[in-house]
């Protein structure tokens, strides 16, 4: 294996977190940084407004023929591979999933960061489910607030503050933590469908607020000097790259700042297979380059930023840390795997909605049933709820076709079905949720004993299923989704995906798979410290949704970026001066 010239920092993965750390280090220090990205270079998106290739065939996603994950519902089952995409969509190439995301940019609630303590204080440990594995993050909302603000400015998040320095502000989310600043940009315009949901929410006495989004409502120049244009509501947003750059993506907010830096190099087509380490110290990585040659890249510091669950896989393959064992509870690597439960209610209107217009985060939400509101407690069997939302994300003609009220036609093909589908076309809106997913002892990741990737390395195995908590949570939230739907005046269909007994990989839930390399305040309970530095290997940093001890009812990217900004400060301001453990 060829041993390359050492660099100061090697970063595995060129998505949001990898490029953010690279940008912070390269622009604030003289350290040399090499980013190894296994996918393709950043591309031009002007000719990619094609629903078939991008939304249906998922052209921007990781090629599952090369590598996938396996799944089983419990440790008693045999896992099988996720052979085609369904419940989540990992990206590939420069920018990663940050290129094709929907740009929804919520902050997490203040209690999320100390959820274990919060639930114990509120209910007493004895009343909590025995298998509950939620943990505190080792960092508080107040400590993260300045980093949230930096991430919001970098992306130009649009929204309306609901809580400014402790004072509630009308029109924003009254349940959010205190913000030090109003959003960098105002909310988007309101589409017809979103206006109908908003009115229904107000009529029912709720306090709806615009969904915060990193797709711009107006031209914006961020503190780094990057200027981007306002969104045109073309509807080709989530699962696509933005053709005009209105959506914040690593390729348009971070990469331009790195392009001409002498201490920076981005190398694509470079597939990292192992982290090299000796005596508790990372020494670099080995990877297969674009010509198929295996190379060893030595580095003083290794930063693993390879997308949430893939971080677990690379650590497991490299033999760093003790794999979690659900029967004994020993080991920390791979534990606290979480996802999010999603369900929809379809609303059938008698008027066209023009749903082809929109953008990923154009929408309205209510927070009354998220967190742990009145009515939810251990006796109800539900500890955390969900936001309820309506979006105008932009619907394509293929995926939106054929939504008809259940039972209206006998068949889902043929003349009668066609007539009904044409009649209902563009008249069907939907209300969605994104239930907070708690961590449980039985949900975790490890290496699959059978299935391998294109190099012959074991795939990551997900052991994950819904518990009674999620089923009760789904029913509780579903009831309120249906009430909201009825209040719009529409004919309301039944819950879609509202009754599945088990976790399914066959339909989309969210790409918010988290955990496996969780952060926390002790090496006994977590893999990385609150600076995202490996507890047992101080020159290894593991960054991304992998660090989340459990999942909130919100999209994770903004929090991933806030935590990554804090890690960057820890590295630049403290680690470089005195390399060693920061916590």
């Amino acid at each position, binding site marked *: 294996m060829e041993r390359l010239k050492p660099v100061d920092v090697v970063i595995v993965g060129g998505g949001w977190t990898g490029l953010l750390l690279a940008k912070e280090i390269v622009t604030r220090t003289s350290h040399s940084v090499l980013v190894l990205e296994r996918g393709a270079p950043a591309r031009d998106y002007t000719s990619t407004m094609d*629903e078939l290739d991008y939304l249906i065939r998922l052209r921007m996603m990781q090629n599952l023929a090369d590598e996938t994950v396996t799944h089983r519902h419990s440790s008693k089952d045999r896992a099988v591979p996720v052979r085609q995409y369904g419940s989540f969509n990992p990206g590939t190439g420069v920018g990663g999933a940050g290129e094709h995301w929907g740009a929804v940019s919520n902050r997490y609630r203040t209690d999320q960061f100390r959820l274990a303590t919060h639930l114990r204080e509120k209910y007493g440990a004895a009343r909590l489910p025995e298998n509950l594995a939620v943990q505190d993050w080792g960092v508080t909302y107040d400590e993260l607030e300045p980093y949230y603000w930096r991430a919001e400015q970098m992306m130009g998040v649009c929204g309306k503050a609901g809580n400014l320095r402790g004072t509630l502000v009308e029109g924003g989310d009254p349940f959010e933590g205190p913000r030090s600043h109003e959003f960098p940009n105002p909310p988007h315009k309101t589409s017809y469908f979103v206006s109908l949901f908003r009115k229904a929410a107000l009529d029912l006495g709720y306090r709806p607020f615009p969904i915060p989004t990193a797709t711009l409502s107006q031209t914006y120049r961020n503190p780094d000097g990057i200027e981007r244009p306002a969104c045109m*509501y073309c509807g080709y947003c989530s699962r696509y790259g933005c053709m*005009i750059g209105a959506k914040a993506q690593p390729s348009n907010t971070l990469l331009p700042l790195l392009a001409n830096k002498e201490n920076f190099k981005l190398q694509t087509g470079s597939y990292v297979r192992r982290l090299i380490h000796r005596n508790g110290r990372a020494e670099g990585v080995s990877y297969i380059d674009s010509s198929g040659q295996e190379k060893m890249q030595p580095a003083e510091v290794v930063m693993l930023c390879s997308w949430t669950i893939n971080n677990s896989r690379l650590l497991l393959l490299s033999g760093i840390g003790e794999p979690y064992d659900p029967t004994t509870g020993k080991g920390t690597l791979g534990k606290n795997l979480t996802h999010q439960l999603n369900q929809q209610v379809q609303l059938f209107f008698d008027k*066209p909605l023009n749903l082809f*217009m929109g953008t990923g985060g154009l929408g309205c939400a209510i927070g009354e049933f998220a967190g742990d509101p009145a009515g939810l407690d251990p006796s109800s069997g539900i500890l955390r709820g969900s936001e309820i939302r309506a979006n105008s994300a932009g619907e394509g003609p293929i995926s939106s076709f054929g939504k008809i009220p259940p039972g209206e036609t006998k068949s889902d093909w043929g003349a009668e079905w066609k007539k009904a589908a044409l009649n209902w076309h563009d008249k069907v809106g939907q209300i969605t949720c994104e239930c907070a997913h708690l961590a449980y002892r039985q949900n975790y990741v490890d290496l699959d004993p059978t299935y391998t990737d294109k190099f012959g390395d074991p795939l990551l195995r997900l052991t994950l299923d819904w518990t009674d908590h999620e089923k009760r949570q789904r029913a509780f939230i579903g009831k309120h989704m249906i009430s909201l739907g009825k209040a719009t005046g529409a004919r309301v269909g039944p819950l879609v995906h509202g009754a599945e007994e*088990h976790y399914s990989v066959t339909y989309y839930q969210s790409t918010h798979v988290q955990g496996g390399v969780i952060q926390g305040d002790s090496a006994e309970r977590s893999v990385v410290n609150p600076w995202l530095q490996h507890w047992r290997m101080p020159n290894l940093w593991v960054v991304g949704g992998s660090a989340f001890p459990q999942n909130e009812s919100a999209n994770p990217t903004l929090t991933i970026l806030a935590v990554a900004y804090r890690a960057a400060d820890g590295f630049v301001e403290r680690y470089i001066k005195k390399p060693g453990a920061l916590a």
Partner: protein
Amino acid sequence: MRRREFITLPAKCLGGLLVYTLAGVPIRIQAQETMVRLPLRFFTANEARVIAAACERIFPSDENGPGAKEAGVIIYIDRQLAGPFGRDRHRYTKGPFLESVPEHGYQGKASPQEIYRDGLRQLREDFADLDAAKQDQVLRAIETTVFFRMLRTHAIEGMFSDPMHGGNAGLIGWQLIGYPGPLMSYRDDIDKNYGQPLRRQPVSLEQIVGHPVKGWEEERD
């Protein structure tokens, strides 16, 4: 090397026949009677006839507007099957192939190409010559199979995907549902037209960007 196979269709069946429209009213009938001979990439000529006939039952041309025949859905499916999708270039296809629970989706070994060839055997060679009622009966008997679910999905895709993929000829599918195509901006429309249909004359991606665009199915390996 496969023998070159062609499908011959009346030109009026490809896009130009009837334009259902903005308000759902037919406004144009093009009385062109020439025949078009198109090379096939995957199907044999008779296989294409069979699949085209099945698609026509799934998404028929009738008094409610044009269907699979006018949109050229068969051309779309032929190209998809010949391309990386049909050859499973983006699906995990390593074994062992195990039976599993429904929550794990399709776990089979067969590629879309193989699923279609198997489906064609179920439909039989004379399917295109049966009357419509008999065709429906044959399809009804297989409507829960992997093949039929895929065929139904592909019929819809061929109706409504950008014409660069071979279907939606003459943008007839988009005209049928009032989809305007991948227009770059609705900035002045997004908060207007509440409850009113916004139905522009559709345009394709190629027309919008001003140069040819190739679909993923054109990728060779």
